[in-house]
């Protein structure tokens, strides 16, 4: 093995090596941009079905995995190069230090690292001569030791970098041996992170086109609305090496936890940290509100207690030990009410994923536990009819649902579509993120109840990866024909129970009654004549009850079994007046 000497170290150009790190990062950015384009393309690839389409989907998945691997290995190489640049600089600094040490004694270090002493007086005071000789010996020793350390550092750097470069190129990399460097920030973050020369970060303004963080604007795809952001996020995550991912979760959980497009396991880990942080803040706020209790801060005390209750409800659900895997995909305590998304089952791997969207007066503290219990049961039923494929169910409380006391609040009233309009992109982005995080998209269903159906209706007007939708107890939709939604024939399902006054009258303020949408499939809530084993759902809040026909239909849609649904009877359809169940009252 050739050892590097001082001569070689003097030829080191660490700034140039650092520049190579930046160039490699730009190359990784190009791969990530290509990955992003493919992920986005794949998600809209519902335009074709059949055996050949399945083969194309497999090919998509295979290429995505390969590109992810290439991007990660470029990342490993980049990390090793940037680290090597710092270590090369350290070796050079040691040589300079030896030179300065020699200069202080009137000596010098030549190009090859030999210490050259000046001619010293050979006569005179013998004591002084002895002192001089001893000082020169110490000088030689120190210079030699320093230069040896420089050579050792240079050698180790060279060997390590060579090993990583070869391994990364041969797809046999072990990222664990590579020192972590600053990683590119996630797309559309408020600032982008640029590694300084010593690895410390500097915050820079966001460039005009920064969908892929610090990667070059030249490779940025078109500007993206928020529903497309998950594809950029998925590409960013796939381009990180394992250490960078772990670091992002540990140091920047807010980058990971709420970010659609990232795997559930990563989001869950980050959200646990964010949940703990929110719990601490909520606890402090409540203690403070109680300590300062006056007749005038009753509202603050109530809100502080509700915040604690919201977070406790999440903690309680996650603590359930019923053999079902749960993932916390969002905890957002920035608003008046906490937002949360909890998944039952493996959303990254299950063939079918159903996402429930709650409606009027839904809150985390009041409803999450109840929904979790209900959906654990419905998931089990869906798995039983889905055949070989697994099923996951998500409770999506990812928006602040309108509350009863807000009915006279202009922008928050359940009588207005504003809350739905403002949050529709969050639901569409969530669906896109689920697909983008996976190697192959899932069969996705939305179960949308009450005002949640208004929100889902708005989301259907956006680009999303949802395949089937079941709107139940919908007060009205912002479209009149299925063509406006981009759903395939048979994918838009509507359920309306007798005496559901919200579904009967909501269209007065929310648009077309869901049962009137051309192309929608109307599913039964009433037990068909002669059918045994089911009960009828009635009113606005009975659709999910165990054993009802509506529950059976929701399960069948989510399991991808349209052959099992029970359609509304012709008699019931023919008897549907525009005024629904309100007719006798008017």
């Amino acid at each position, binding site marked *: 093995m050739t050892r590097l*000497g001082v001569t070689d170290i003097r030829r080191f150009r660490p700034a140039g090596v650092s520049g*190579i790190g930046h160039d490699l990062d730009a190359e990784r950015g*190009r791969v990530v941009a*290509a990955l992003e384009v493919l992920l986005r393309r794949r998600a809209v690839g519902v335009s*074709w079905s059949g055996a050949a389409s399945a083969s194309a989907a497999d*090919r998509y998945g295979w290429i995505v995995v*390969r590109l992810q691997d290439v991007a990660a290995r470029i990342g490993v190489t980049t990390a090793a190069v940037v680290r090597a640049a710092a270590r090369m600089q350290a070796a050079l600094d040691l040589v300079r230090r030896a030179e300065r040490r020699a200069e202080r004694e009137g000596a010098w270090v030549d190009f090859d690292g030999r210490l050259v002493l000046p001619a010293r007086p050979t006569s005179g005071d013998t004591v002084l001569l002895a002192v001089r000789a001893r000082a020169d010996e110490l000088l030689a020793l120190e210079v030699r030791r320093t230069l040896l350390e420089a050579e050792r550092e240079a050698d180790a750097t060279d060997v390590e970098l060579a090993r990583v*470069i070869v391994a990364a*190129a041969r797809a046999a990399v072990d990222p664990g041996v590579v020192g972590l460097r600053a990683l590119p920030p996630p797309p559309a973050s408020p600032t982008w992170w640029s590694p300084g020369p010593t690895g410390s970060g500097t915050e820079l303004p966001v460039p005009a086109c920064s969908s892929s963080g610090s990667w070059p604007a030249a490779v940025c795809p078109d500007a993206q609305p928020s529903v497309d952001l998950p594809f950029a996020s998925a590409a960013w995550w796939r381009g990180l090496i394992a250490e960078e991912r772990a670091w992002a979760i540990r140091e920047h959980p807010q980058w990971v936890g709420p970010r659609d497009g990232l795997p559930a396991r990563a989001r869950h880990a980050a959200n646990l940290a964010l949940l703990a942080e929110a719990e601490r803040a909520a606890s402090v706020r409540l203690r403070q509100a109680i300590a300062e209790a006056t007749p005038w801060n009753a509202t603050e005390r109530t809100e502080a207690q509700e915040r604690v209750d919201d977070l406790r409800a999440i903690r309680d659900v996650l603590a359930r030990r019923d053999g079902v895997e749960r993932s916390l995909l969002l905890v957002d305590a920035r608003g008046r009410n906490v937002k949360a998304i909890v998944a039952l089952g493996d959303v990254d791997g299950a063939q079918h994923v159903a996402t429930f969207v709650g409606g009027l007066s839904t809150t985390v503290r009041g409803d999450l536990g109840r929904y979790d219990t209900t959906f654990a049961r419905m998931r089990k039923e869906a798995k039983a009819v889905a055949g070989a494929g697994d099923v996951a169910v998500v409770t999506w409380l990812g928006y602040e649902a309108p509350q009863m006391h807000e009915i006279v609040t202009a922008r928050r009233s359940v009588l207005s579509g504003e809350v739905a309009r403002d949050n529709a992109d969050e639901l569409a982005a969530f669906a896109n993120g689920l697909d983008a995080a996976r190697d192959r998209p899932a069969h996705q269903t939305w179960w949308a109840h009450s005002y949640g159906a208004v929100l889902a209706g708005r989301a259907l007007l956006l680009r999303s990866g949802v395949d089937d939708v079941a709107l139940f107890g919908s007060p009205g939709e912002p479209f009149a024909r299925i063509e406006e939604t981009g759903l395939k024939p048979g994918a838009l399902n509507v359920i309306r129970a007798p005496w559901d006054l919200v579904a009967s009258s909501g269209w007065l303020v929310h648009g077309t009654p869901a049962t009137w949408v051309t192309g929608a499939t109307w599913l039964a809530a009433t037990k068909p004549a002669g059918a045994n084993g089911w009960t009828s759902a009635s009113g606005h809040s009975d659709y999910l009850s165990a054993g009802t026909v509506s529950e059976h239909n929701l399960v069948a849609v989510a399991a991808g079994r349209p052959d099992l649904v029970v359609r509304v009877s012709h008699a019931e359809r023919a008897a549907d007046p525009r005024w629904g169940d309100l007719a006798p009252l008017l």
Partner: protein
Amino acid sequence: MRRRVEPDAVADDAGGVERAGRLLAGVRVGAALGPLASFLPGGQVARCLAESRSEWDRQVASVAREVGALADGLTATAAGYTEVESVVARHLGGHG
């Protein structure tokens, strides 16, 4: 077997995949690594660099070819279905 095809949408997919292929065609990992030999001379890095660079070029080209093949496949799919549609329409009296 029941099939559902939207040839225009498949053609759009092909266009998107082609775009990804163009981005990959611009990836130059080997070239980016090239100057390492002169910035860190005399050691193992300098000796192994040529092999690593060519390995990177080979792999990137390989995955770019795969992407190109997918784009070609999608393009052929869209064209094939469109052709079948127009041939059948022509044979049955030009009502297509």
